[in-house]
């Protein structure tokens, strides 16, 4: 009787567990990007990613990536949240092997609660983007402003997951070029 009841519960819980595991799985990339067919190629969009922050300033950075397969460069739009008012000139992407620096273009600046919300855009070559999203221990993003350079870092374990996932999407895009 007890065994039958236990079996019943296992049968009930197992499919739910399976669905949750599949949906939350780290390497399931299907819900991390979207693609749209255009006259001049396939337009890919990698949904906003986060994890980069500066604990000293209490600031954080989110970004998303748009790429049209017929172009050499991808557009990286980012949001930076900080209490201070700044003017960002350029952005740098660093890991153990590669350093990529690019000028930024302002989309808008707003205030959100007590922080400033800076929304900027930059262009990065698709090859450089591939180089940056490599699992390493020292990935960081640097924002260059007139006052100072702001370094945003990410936990290595988070970066390894994020870089692997993004690399997989970029590989998929390369395969469809």
């Amino acid at each position: 009787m007890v065994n039958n009841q236990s079996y019943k519960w296992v049968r009930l819980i197992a499919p739910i567990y399976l669905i949750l595991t599949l949906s939350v799985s780290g390497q399931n990339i299907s819900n991390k990007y979207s693609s749209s067919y255009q006259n001049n190629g396939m337009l890919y969009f990698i949904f906003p990613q986060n994890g980069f922050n500066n604990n000293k300033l209490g600031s954080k950075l989110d970004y998303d990536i748009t790429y049209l397969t017929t172009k050499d460069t991808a557009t990286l739009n980012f949001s930076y949240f900080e209490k201070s008012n700044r003017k960002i000139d350029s952005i740098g992407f660093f890991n153990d092997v590669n350093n990529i620096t690019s000028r930024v273009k302002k989309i808008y600046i707003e205030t959100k609660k007590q922080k400033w919300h800076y929304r900027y855009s930059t262009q990065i070559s698709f090859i450089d983007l591939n180089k940056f999203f490599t699992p390493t221990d020292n990935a960081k993003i640097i924002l260059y402003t007139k006052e100072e350079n702001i370094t945003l870092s990410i936990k290595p374990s988070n970066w390894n997951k994020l870089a692997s996932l993004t690399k997989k999407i970029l590989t998929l895009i390369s395969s469809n070029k």
Partner: protein
Amino acid sequence: MKKVKMFLLVAGSTFLISSCAMVKAPLSGYVYTGVKAPVTATSNSNSSKVGTSQATSVLGWFAFGDASIDAAAKSAGISKIHHVDEQSTSVLGIFATYKVLVYGE
């Protein structure tokens, strides 16, 4: 006493079920929802930019965010909209997100 317990049980269950984090979607699953669907399309040709906006619900008790088309278009500097899609996700009615994707130039 038994009737009071029964009443509390029914009232509690109703409260819990009705308070689940539901999300707007053409199809929804009670255990898991992960649906992408169209919102609108215009006669403008081609897209080179994509913007997104999002709202979140937790337990059906808290809901926050700006999932407007305007917020999504603004996030990518889009002034001519080509089409708009939505993406709804919900897990066990505990956590739900609603994303709007705007394509345009």
